[in-house]
């Protein structure tokens, strides 16, 4: 097992809060009897004074790096299915438990092909070579001296969603949780490529990670010179190890695996390099047996996160339907919501900011009458592309193309308020 994996287990997020809880428990020991009675009998509710107002709370810096409340311990990444190895695996973001559009760094979905390397940034280098005037090697300090940009973008695994019909108890996390959204800070790849001087005739770059799989993908030079970022920070802090610390490639709107983590090398060439990840993997098999190659863009998508699979409504009345929409082609221009299985649709409100290649939060008021309801959302982007139904997608691509599933995701609300997955 790698050092990083060990580290993540040993400094599990529960450890420190548990100590904090124990300390609080010790402080409370003097009034333990009264406290226990209060806790069990609802004694913290009006008109009683809650016990946490009668004693000092925990001191600052416990811990120095803050963690979620122990009461939020269920809000974690999980795996969709068990795989033979945990270092070539994925974990999913708990979309149904999040608000707004930013994914907390500790909840960003993971996709590793050879585990999470433990990289000392002082020993990390980025090499830029190939069809360039000046092959160069950069330290992290040098990369961070370039003019920088900060931009909000989603990263979505091309395996998000499922052509397979999933179990009724599937949650939003399992159905569509291979997407996360952060503010990424770094230097534009074009700035660094200009530093090396791209030679005429360059049409593709190869990006290579410094992990045990040495993941490599070819990227068209147009994308590299457009909005690609060499990112070293996410949501204000340096990248998390599982997000590519100390350096990752960010290709806004492109499928997740191309956003090479632990980036160590950019080679400029005059043709795609035909790596394993862009031939036998991450290509889309069609019903006629041919496979689409270089399908980079993540098309418009959306999912209702409340109410969603596994949740339960507490009786008829007002609810605010809420969800996320996104498109790899640009901005979301509209989201429509249906509560009658797609017979009628109405426009949801879009929460500002609505940014290009970024998650957009939508909301729609709903008064549930207590009858079974099939709820769903569909998004429209600035290219006027409308998110398809499952039937429309499967009619063209069959059920074996695996990647780029972006069909409308319905949720069935039963008369008792329970919410289940429907394909």
């Amino acid at each position, binding site marked *: 097992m790698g050092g990083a994996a060990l580290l993540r287990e040993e400094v599990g997020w529960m450890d420190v809060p548990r100590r904090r809880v124990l300390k609080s428990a010790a402080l409370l020991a003097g009034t333990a009897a009264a406290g226990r009675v209060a806790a069990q009998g609802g004694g913290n509710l009006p008109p009683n004074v809650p016990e946490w107002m009668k004693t000092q709370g925990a001191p600052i810096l416990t811990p120095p790096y803050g963690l979620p409340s122990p009461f939020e311990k269920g809000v974690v990444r999980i795996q969709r299915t068990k795989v*033979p*190895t945990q270092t*070539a695996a994925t974990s999913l973001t708990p979309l149904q438990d999040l608000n707004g559009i930013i994914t907390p760094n500790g909840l960003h979905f993971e996709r590793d*092909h*050879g585990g999470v390397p433990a990289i000392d940034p002082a020993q990390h280098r980025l*090499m*830029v*070579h190939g069809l360039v005037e000046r*092959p*160069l*090697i*950069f330290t992290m300090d*040098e*990369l961070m*001296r*370039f003019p920088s940009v900060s931009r909000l973008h989603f990263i979505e695994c091309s395996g998000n969603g499922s052509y397979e019909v999933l179990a009724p108890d599937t949650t939003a996390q399992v159905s569509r949780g291979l997407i996360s959204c952060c503010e990424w800070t770094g230097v534009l790849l*074009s*700035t660094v490529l*200009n*530093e*090396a001087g791209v030679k005429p005739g360059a049409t593709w770059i*190869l990006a*290579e990670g410094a992990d*045990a*799989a*040495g993941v*490599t993908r070819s990227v068209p030079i147009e994308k590299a010179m457009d909005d690609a970022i060499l990112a070293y920070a996410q949501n204000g802090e340096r990248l998390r190890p599982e997000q590519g610390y100390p350096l990752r490639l960010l290709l806004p709107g492109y499928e997740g695996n191309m956003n090479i983590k632990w980036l160590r*090398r950019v*080679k400029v*060439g005059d*043709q*795609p*390099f*035909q*790596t*394993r990840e862009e*031939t*036998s993997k991450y*290509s889309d*098999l069609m019903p*006629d*047996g*041919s*496979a*689409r*190659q*270089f*399908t*980079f*863009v993540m*098309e418009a998508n959306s999912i209702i996160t409340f109410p969603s699979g596994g949740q339960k409504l507490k009786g008829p009345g007002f609810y605010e339907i809420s969800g996320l929409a996104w498109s790899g082609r640009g901005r979301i221009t509209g989201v429509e919501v249906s509560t009658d299985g797609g017979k009628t649709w109405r426009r949801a409100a879009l929460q500002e900011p609505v940014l290009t290649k970024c998650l957009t939060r939508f909301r729609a008021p709903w008064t549930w009458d207590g009858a079974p309801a099939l709820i769903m959302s569909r998004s429209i982007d600035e*290219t006027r592309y*409308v998110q*398809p139904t499952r039937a*429309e*997608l499967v009619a*063209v*691509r069959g059920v*074996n193309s695996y990647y*780029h599933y972006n069909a409308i995701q319905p949720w069935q609300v039963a008369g008792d308020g329970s919410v289940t997955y429907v394909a």
Partner: protein
Amino acid sequence: MWRRLLCVAAAALAGAAAAAPAPTIYGFGKPATPQEIAGWDIDVRADGAGLPPGHGSVEAGQAIYAQKCAVCHGATGVEGPMDKLAGGAGSLATAKPDRTVGSFWPYATTLYDFIHRAMPFTQPQSLTPDEVYAVTAYVLFLNHVVPKDAVMDARTLPKVRMPNRGGFTSPDPRPDAP
């Protein structure tokens, strides 16, 4: 507001462009020496560019495979638990497509690239070029793509035509649905 700022910025850039050729060179980074590049430049392109000197036979590959690969890929490349390497011919257009090296991979050279960089799973980049060529030859033999007496090297490997070489389409035809 933004448009006005952009105009100002554009004007400033135009001024700078008149004084110095764009784009800006910051002078960061150090020149990469040929030796430094050689150590890291491990990719092998579809046409074989990047293949190192060395060679390996099916027979040599069989021994290495049994020792270092069979534990994950099975004795004959089909037993798993990890990716199936052989079989699946004619299955791509069926309800249960079987995507193996022989049935799906378009380029034989990609085998060298991937085995060298990422295999064996627990010891990536530990095989010598001769060993990588040999394992590549053996996996191709398991798929009936090369004969039992085949020897792979920088000259022969790019000439191997994979059965599904013509099976990939680009550019991206999407949006395709609805």
